[in-house]
């Protein structure tokens, strides 16, 4: 039982990160029907911003908040820039063109980073000591708690923005019907830009959190988590915000259990296998409905 709960804790902490990244995939898909494969690399950039912030600006708890703000701000800008440069000109092109462009952007970001910083793993200077807490026989590290708490705060914030602000309303409107939204006086370009900024900021935050958790950053670190987060988004129902949260947490937990109870060599096979089953049984994803209300 102790082991079960411990594995659940492990799974939820890694799942939170998947969820944060999955949110960006799902929002962008919801609004322009583009699978933004470069999203995992935005997460990597966030981790690098965190790395440099801890190393050259400040450590401590204040340093962590600063790194989070810098990474979110920086990634939001980069996300918007990528949208302007790479995706906007293709808005009316076929979907496959945009998809391939997204892959190109992904490789571009990865190898620009390899070129400037080298492909090797870098050790992140921990901004504060990663204290270990015990509840009975279950252990938590401070970084695990920070990941979960930060994720919850960011998700609440996102829910508020999407549901209770004017921009959120515009996002929902554009995702439902961009042409109708334009006719109603919504600036579609701004809204799409904002969506990219929001999604990228979340990925940036996830990058800082994961850097803090493992103390490792590397230019190709976004590939696998990016793919897993994409699966998480599909798993929960792509285009649906609660679906991404739920999908992320589920993938994290399933993967951890598979590796803990069966074998780490099976974890990916099990995760992808489950995805196939869910898509066969429920093509719209676990929380997906055949309704058009998407963001």
């Amino acid at each position, binding site marked *: 039982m*102790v*082991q079960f709960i*411990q*594995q659940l804790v*492990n*799974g939820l902490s*890694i799942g939170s990160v998947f969820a944060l990244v999955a949110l960006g995939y799902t929002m962008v898909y919801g609004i322009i029907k583009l699978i933004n494969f470069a999203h995992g690399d935005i997460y990597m950039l966030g981790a690098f911003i965190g790395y440099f912030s801890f190393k050259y600006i400040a450590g401590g708890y204040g340093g962590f908040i600063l790194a989070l703000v810098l990474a979110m701000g920086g990634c939001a800008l980069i996300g918007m820039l990528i949208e302007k440069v790479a995706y906007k000109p293709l808005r009316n092109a076929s979907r496959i063109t945009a998809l391939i462009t997204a892959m190109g952007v992904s490789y571009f970001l990865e190898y620009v980073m390899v070129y400037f910083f*080298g*492909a*090797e*793993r870098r*050790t992140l200077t*921990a901004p504060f000591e*990663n204290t*270990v807490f*015990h509840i009975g026989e279950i*252990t938590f*590290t401070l970084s695990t708690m920070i990941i979960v708490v930060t994720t919850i705060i960011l998700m609440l914030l996102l829910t508020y923005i999407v549901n209770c602000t004017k921009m959120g309303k515009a996002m929902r409107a554009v995702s439902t019907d961009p042409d109708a939204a334009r006719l109603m006086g919504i600036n579609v370009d701004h809204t799409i830009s904002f969506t990219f900024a929001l999604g990228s900021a979340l990925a940036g935050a996830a990058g800082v959190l994961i850097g803090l958790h*493992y*103390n*490792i950053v590397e230019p190709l*670190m976004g590939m*696998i988590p990016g793919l897993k987060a994409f699966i998480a988004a599909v798993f929960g129902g792509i285009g649906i915000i609660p679906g991404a949260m739920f999908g992320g947490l589920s993938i994290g937990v399933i*993967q*951890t*259990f598979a*590796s*803990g*109870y069966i*074998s*780490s*060599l099976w974890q990916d096979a099990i995760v992808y296998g489950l995805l196939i089953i869910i898509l066969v049984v429920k093509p719209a994803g676990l929380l997906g409905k055949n309704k058009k209300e998407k963001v």
Partner: protein
Amino acid sequence: MRKHMKMMAAGCMALTVLAGCGGSGDDSKTIKIGVDYEQTGGVADYGKAHVNGIKLAIKEINKKGGVNGKKLELVVADNKSEITEVGTVTTKLMTEDEVVMVLGPATSGNTSAAINVANKNKIPVISASATANNVTENKDGSVTKYGYKICYSDNYQGEALAKFALSKDAKRAVIVSDSGSDYAKGLAESFKKEFADGSGTIVASKSYQTGDTDFKSILTSLKSESFDVMFVPGYYQEAGPLVKQAREMGIDAMILGPDGFDSENFIKQAGNANLNNVFFSTHFSKVGENQKVKDFVKKYQAAYDKEPGCFEALGYDLAYYAADVIKRAGKDVTPETVNKALGDTKAKFSGVTGSFTMKKDHTPDKVITVVELKNGEQVSAAEVK
């Protein structure tokens, strides 16, 4: 020619005479040695460390007048830690740069790839750290003609580590190994066998994938077992975070690792506070009173302004060994005469990583050192035979 005749006196007569009819490379003033290392990519730490050691040694050798009156010239290439790149780079060194031998690469997989190229081009390759068991063997088990190494093999390393664990009264062991490398598999197997033969029990075996950063689920499932030692055959990239996560999770048992742990980054990634009761086998330790080692450390620090680790030392020995081999090859230094000198099982070489003679299987006859870490510092070194 006159100049070369004088040099003969210094060389080994018999070999020189035998090699006399070779002829190529005779006119140049330098002897070219290829250096084929992982200077970028996944195991760049190993490669760069070797290259630093090699460069230092070659500088010293050339300062003293080179070998047989000729200076040694390095042709350095980066194989990017990728096996396909190893093929390209080694071929280029051998066919375009006209080297008499190639030093490197660092990992066993890459070395095997380089040896394949070596056999095709009939130019020897010597690795200082390819510890896999069959690196110097052909597919049919025969000894490869142009591949050598100056480090011990994994089965020998795995056995020595098992003996070491038993000598520390460990009875129950768990193994967490990298599923993606032959290196880890070979080590795990030989450890298992020796440990079980010596009254120990393997309680559980788990594996992770190369490139993993999260080991918590594996460690959690091991935590419920009772064991005295955790053996982690793998490289520092994964071992660093693995040890960190194990200690944070409250696994205090002895952790034992192979020479793949031996990197500054292992210490950095695991964190000093988590590195207690951690042991690993190494090719080189600064702990102890060896004058040769002390001199090397001093010279290395003067040159690079940092402490050398085991791969710097292996690189340094490799370059001196290459010089020794070239000297024994005699006046006419060609890949063939060099290969002949390499295969000499009687020539004894003594360096900072120990003394050895080359065995018939192209691997050296060497002792293993196991070092202990306390708060991230090496505190003691034990020799295991």
